[in-house]
């Protein structure tokens, strides 16, 4: 929640308030830096832990002079550990940002890429490719599933956007429409599962559980660029979004074009989350939970809240990646299974305690 800054009043009070405000901002910036430090630690743990006992020295040599290590170590570092660790951070960051913006513009704490149907639509697109071998002609084999998933996720976002514009839906209506899309796409996926052969079915189940194993350097680059643009655009609107949290009328009175902000942002973050789930499969919960944790830590000022969503998402996802490798050594547990289990303690400690304090 925001702490109102009184601009009028007696001078000493004003001075005190502005000092407190500056101190609070400094604290929040420190908090962000703290989470960045935690992400770096988590990534380092993720990178240095794996089923093969590689010494830190070997890892370092493989990083700085890849030509001088054995091919096995080279593959382990450059094609397994590094891409998985980076993918976890990027995926968490993108889903966190998307969820954070969705909750603000729809003014609904339940909004997330998952609850608005983006993930379900992506799963349907993937299922069409996996089960029926339906794909856009000319697409290379390894990209058929992600491109299908992206196309359907984007289409679902466009449907949501179109209906919202056409019927001038209130925000609650948009959320409801999103949930309706979730059910529609889940039903369609079930229908495909029903006709699928066992091996296709298994492929689909593994896809929907979400996995970082699909990471490669091209996908990492695409996702990093998308995140960068997403974050820049989001931060440019952070004032408007902060104003929106005070209520639609207040925001409008500040000169914010609420409708345009809402629809433009919805489309942008839907595209971002569509891209993310198309690469790694459906990973729920991160997009829903990161904004709540960020809000509890950083309040409603979107200059801090939005980067907070990004950082918290990245941190939780990185920890989930460590867990998905560590629970059964040598075996990959789909990361989508682990995220909720890893995220719940954060949720309980930070969000539940914070809301307990508020009441």
């Amino acid at each position: 929640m925001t702490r109102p800054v009184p601009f009028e009043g007696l001078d000493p009070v004003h001075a005190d308030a502005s000092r407190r405000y500056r101190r609070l901002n400094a604290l929040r910036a420190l908090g962000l830096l703290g989470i960045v430090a935690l992400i770096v630690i988590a990534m380092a743990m993720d990178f240095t832990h794996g089923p093969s006992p590689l010494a830190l020295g070997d890892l370092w040599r493989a990083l700085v002079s890849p030509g001088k290590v054995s091919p096995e170590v080279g593959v382990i570092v450059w094609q397994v550990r590094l891409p998985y660790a980076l993918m976890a951070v990027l995926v968490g960051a993108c889903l966190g940002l998307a969820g954070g913006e969705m909750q603000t513009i729809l003014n609904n704490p339940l909004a997330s890429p998952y609850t608005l149907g983006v993930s379900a639509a992506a799963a349907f697109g993937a299922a069409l490719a996996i089960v029926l071998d339906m794909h856009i002609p000319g697409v290379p084999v390894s990209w058929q599933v992600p491109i299908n998933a992206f196309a359907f996720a984007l289409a679902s976002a466009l449907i949501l956007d179109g209906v919202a514009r056409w019927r001038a839906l209130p925000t609650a209506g948009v959320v409801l429409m999103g949930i309706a899309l979730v059910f529609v796409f889940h039903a369609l996926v079930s229908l495909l599962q029903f006709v699928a052969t066992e091996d296709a079915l298994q492929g689909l189940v593994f896809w929907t559980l979400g996995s970082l194993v699909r990471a490669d350097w091209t996908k990492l680059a695409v996702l990093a660029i998308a995140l960068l643009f997403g974050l820049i655009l989001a931060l440019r609107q952070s004032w408007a979004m902060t104003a929106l949290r005070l209520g639609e009328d207040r925001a409008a009175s500040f000169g914010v074009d609420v409708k345009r902000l809402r629809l433009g942002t919805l489309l942008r973050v839907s595209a971002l989350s569509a891209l993310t789930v198309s690469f790694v499969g459906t990973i729920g919960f991160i997009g829903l939970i990161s904004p709540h944790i960020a809000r509890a830590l950083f309040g409603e000022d979107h200059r801090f809240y939005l980067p907070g969503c990004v950082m918290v998402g990245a941190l939780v996802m990185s920890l989930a990646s460590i867990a998905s490798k560590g629970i059964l050594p040598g075996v990959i547990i789909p990361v989508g299974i682990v995220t909720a289990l890893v995220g719940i303690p954060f949720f309980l400690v930070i969000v539940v305690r914070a809301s307990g304090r508020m009441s």
Partner: protein
Amino acid sequence: MIPSLSLRSTLRRLLCAMPFLLLALVSPLAHAGETVTDMAGRRVTLPDHVDRVLLGEGRLLYAMALLEGKDPLHRIVGWQGDLQALDPQTWATYQKAFPGIDRIPLIGKSSEATVSVEKALSLKPDLAIFSVGGHGPSRHNALVQRFEAAGVPVVFVDFRQSPLKDTLPSIELMGKALQRQAQAQAYIDFYRQHMARVQAAVASVPASEHPRVFVELLAGVWGGCCHTVGKGNLGELVQAAGGVNIAADLLPGVIGDLNLEQVIASAPEVYVATGSRREGDRPALHIGAQTPIEESRRSLDALLTRPGLTAIKAIREGHVHGLWHNYYDSPYNIVAVEAFLSWFYPGRFPDIDPAATQAELYKRFLAVPPGGTYWVDGDKP
């Protein structure tokens, strides 16, 4: 008031019982025969005369064909669609010899969820043979109760969960149920004789020389790497052939995904990819009936170009092989065991020849000609 109520409730009961009564009327009176215990641990009284057989999995044909001689399909009145969907080449081979295969009704597609109870009941089988787990009706399927209520014996067999332990008892069971005891015994003798040779060969090798093996199930089909089998299923066959399955002690269940890094670190000495049919232009091992060996080898080589795989010891050193995936659910699995042995100990046991075993199996027991490729070696680097 009261009499009319009881009349109504009697009527309702009658109506509820109608389907069962009808079934009891239309199904031929089953004479009680021998009572056996099936592979699901159920006591089943077999009919003493069987003309109409329903198969819970299409791929139970692999086993049924061993017992039925020159006309393997004539008693099958219905089956699940998995043979057609998952092994279209074998289907096509039988179709060529027995065009009537197209007229055998399906009770479902290739998963248990698709089984139509009504369709299965309407086929009026004298006997139903189901698989323990897999792609058709399983132990808890409503169909089992319906059949039992209608007096149709249901026999469960298993070629998948514990192939080493259950293959021969399942064949024996099917022999009794189908009144083909002599044929079943002949196959059991054939299988035992070949397995005994393998066991003797493996026993002559000290355990420390058993190679580490990585089996990648349906390699390439799901993208990524390292979908594999732990204990049970093909893992049992690897062990029977004197191999150490690297996933056996890692996976908690029968199947799962290993971390590629783990596979590299385990340094397997033999790599085996399984595959079945061709599907579009997706990476997969093309193997099985009607598949030329050149195509099979090309598809195996293409699989090895997936990122990171060359760091696996067996692949780097050229100990790469491909195997027909459906051996995981087939009584012909003795051929797979011999193929494994020939890969694990190349040149060491020249009298164990999977090709000769396969040829003998077809010649003595099956009504279709052998053909295609069921195992293949990769190119040496």
